[in-house]
């Protein structure tokens, strides 16, 4: 029976969902672009049939909502149609954003873990730091980003680093919250054990608190890495960056190139899932070394 084939069993639900989403997308594209295309026909006073109208909604040059095949065509063209270093290549822009993302992620992770360590080890710091950490996330980053860029530019920092700092500013938060939880995860009995062996605070940290926090670390890293990608893209928006996915989005919206916007969005989605996949892979590798149940 076809139905019982393991491959079918595994992928049938995924394929069904994807097909359903594409179908909905096509229907939405037709509905949203209908008046635009009809307007075009009427301006030219040309006779048109319904099928011409529907075909028009899927091939408009600047549609409100481009059809999936249009997005994919532009995406494929801008990924494979140019040298990876060409300014029209999506690969080039993705790499620019990716480098800011990774640096920002690294900075954010270090900051997040550092803050969590301070909070866990001192009640005074917990009381004084935590409100500020929470406040920092209440300010819209879109308002802060230009200020950051201007201030950092004034002290001579340009290009990659300001973007990374904005990205780090966004992504340290889930790591701090997750790691505070993780560092305080050990069982009281395990802490008592360390005490009976008169372990130093450093040993308690390295041999008990750190390993206990690892599951929390990866959960928060997964959240953080997507946030840091968003941070890097957002940092490119208000600053008139010339390269990066954010710059591509901005240029697309200036010139009404909706298909180009969607292609850039597709690139960032692929980037994000790749990054999460990477964190997940690392998590599985670390997990198997740390005796996680399969």
């Amino acid at each position, binding site marked *: 029976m076809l139905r019982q084939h393991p491959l079918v069993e595994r992928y049938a639900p995924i394929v069904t969902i994807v097909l359903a989403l594409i179908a909905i997308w096509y229907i939405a594209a037709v509905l949203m672009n209908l008046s635009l295309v009809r307007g075009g026909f009427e301006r030219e006073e040309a006779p048109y049939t319904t099928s011409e109208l529907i075909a028009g909604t899927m091939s408009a040059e600047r549609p409100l909502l481009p059809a999936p095949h249009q997005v994919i065509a532009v995406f494929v063209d801008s990924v494979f149609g140019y040298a990876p270093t060409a300014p029209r290549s999506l690969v080039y822009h993705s790499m620019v954003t990716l480098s800011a993302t990774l640096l920002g992620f690294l900075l954010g992770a270090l900051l997040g873990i550092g803050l969590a360590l301070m909070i866990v080890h001192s009640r005074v710091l917990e009381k004084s730091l935590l409100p500020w950490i929470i406040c920092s996330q209440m300010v819209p980053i879109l308002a802060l980003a230009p200020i950051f860029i201007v201030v950092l530019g004034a002290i001579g920092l340009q290009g990659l680093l300001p973007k990374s700092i904005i990205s780090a500013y966004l992504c340290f938060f889930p790591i701090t919250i997750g790691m505070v939880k993780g560092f305080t995860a050990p069982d009281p009995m*395990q802490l008592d054990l360390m005490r*009976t062996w008169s*372990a130093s605070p450093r*040993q308690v940290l390295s*041999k008990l608190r750190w390993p206990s926090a*690892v599951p929390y670390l990866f959960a928060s890293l997964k959240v953080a890495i997507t946030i840091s990608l968003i941070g890097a893209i957002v940092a490119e928006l208000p600053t008139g960056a010339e390269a990066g996915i954010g710059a591509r989005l901005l240029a697309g919206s200036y010139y009404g190139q909706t298909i180009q916007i969607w292609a850039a969005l597709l690139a960032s989605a692929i980037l994000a899932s790749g990054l999460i996949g990477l964190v997940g892979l690392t998590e599985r590798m670390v997990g198997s070394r*740390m*005796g996680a149940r399969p």
Partner: protein
Amino acid sequence: MPKTLKPHHPGVTLRPEGRQPSVVRNDPVRMNSQADATVQSAPAPQRLAVDVRNVSLTFQTADGAVDALSNVSLQVAEGEFVSFIGPSGCGKTTMLRLIADLQQPTSGTLLVNGVSAGQARLERRYGYVFQAPALFPWRTIEKNLKLPLEIMGFSDSEQKQRAARYLALVNLTGFERKFPWQLSGGMQQRVSIARALSFDPALLLMDEPFGALDEIVRDHLNEQLLQLWDKTGKTVLFVTHSIPEAVFLSSKIVVMSPRPGRIIDVIDCNFPRDRTLEIRETPEFLKIAQRVRVGLRAGHSYDE
């Protein structure tokens, strides 16, 4: 479950030379004469493993002060096996935690091996076995055993050697590379006992180590623990709420009572050191069990 502990593992020579564990009474005045009577070979002065004098511990809670322990005194000589038995809230676990310096008394003095409890903890004089195995799930069994050794700065070769030796002692050789979740509850608890023994402390504090295990596994581990005690000559303080377990294992049974936590009876219990589970059917055993039960009943305030 693997077979019983091999009675004399060739690699295990834990008993320190020249020390003769002996049983003494609670009364410090009579203690010396008792010691003189039992120690034949080495007439060394009888040392106290634990000396608790007039210790009280009061918790401040929202409902007012709670006397966890009230004016408790107890002397335990080296090499004794002392059980603490009593209903919940009688302070038996608290007693162990005070001796381990996991909590501090409100008043009174508490000496472990002749020094303060805090000093004894810093000198790593005791091993503690908790109610749950409390193994570190990310470490293999061998690495769990090595953990206290790592902390105490033993050399790598010493760590490896000791891990092998103490795994053999609790009959878990071959499980080095397994993770804790791959072992049964009883096996995990044996690992935690081996871990407490691994740095060879003279004093072993055990807080209901077999409380969560079923009767059969528990009997089995009781026998193993008794052999271990006989073999190593360690002092053991053992919290339980099982009367047969207390009578079977101990050289001295301390009966405690709650509200306030206090000692109401200390019962000597001198069965031969190589006893087996069969002694539980003997009249002597039942007599001591009966005395423990009477003591417990007297202390049970909710029976009124």
